[in-house]
């Protein structure tokens, strides 16, 4: 019984030993981005990952800056 208790405590201590350990510093690599990854602009709604649809929307939006096309020349 006593041995089982000691074994259990040792196993628990071993299992929980690394739970609180998180990397405290970034792994520094010269000249490479060290921050968090970013989402693509078309990742979420309303494009839901459709890159082509997003590009078409941007192209259409771009042309609103061209008044020769917007109101006719």
């Amino acid at each position: 019984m006593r041995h089982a208790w000691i074994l259990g405590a040792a196993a628990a201590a071993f299992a929980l030993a690394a739970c609180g350990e998180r990397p405290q510093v970034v792994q520094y690599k010269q000249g490479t981005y060290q921050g968090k990854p970013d989402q693509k602009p078309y990742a979420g709604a309303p494009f839901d990952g459709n890159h082509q649809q997003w590009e078409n929307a941007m192209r259409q939006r771009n042309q609103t800056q061209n008044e020769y096309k917007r109101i006719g020349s």
Partner: protein
Amino acid sequence: MARMKFLCDAERCIECNGCVTACKQEHEIPWGVNRRRVVTVNDGVPGERSISVACMHCSDAPCMAVCPVDCFYKTEEGVVLHDKDLCIGCGYCFYACPFGAPQFPQTGAFGVRGKMDKCTFCAGGPEANSSEEEFRKYGRNRLAEGKLPACAEMCATKALLGGDGDVLADIYRQRVTVRGRGGDVWGWATAYGQPGQAPGQAPGQAPAKGGKS
């Protein structure tokens, strides 16, 4: 898609600062931080020109090169962004940037310099698209909504264009063709005058001989 770029047509800019206001309003930028500003060359002299300046999202960005913690990254659309959680506010990027784009909010009684803030091309930053966290740190993510930067879309005279560089070049080329001038507005002579030109003299009044453009 090609790279996202800004292009300011100096023939059209009327120095209204609408782009500056649109940017500040869209992203709720704090007092003292100007992601965009209007610069006037030869102010008060006939022939003066104004341009709207912000981060130009350089192809080979010097801010990225000098950052000691490498917090800058470039999206596949060519937009230069940074991670504010990593930025240490050292100011190296400000010294490296030829456009003075990086801004540092001053906080506290002694004006402690905060983390760098700059134009994001309305593309947010490394947080979930259109999240509260992204808005608080980087401002609105208009690209994720299928929109272009607020400054360019708000420009009344359409002097400031923003978007796909190839498309902008086409728009600008068409403008120059229609109005028959203005393609040479940009260059050395406009910014710095020409050889032999007296200080304050309008570029148009100077002898064009030997001048760079």
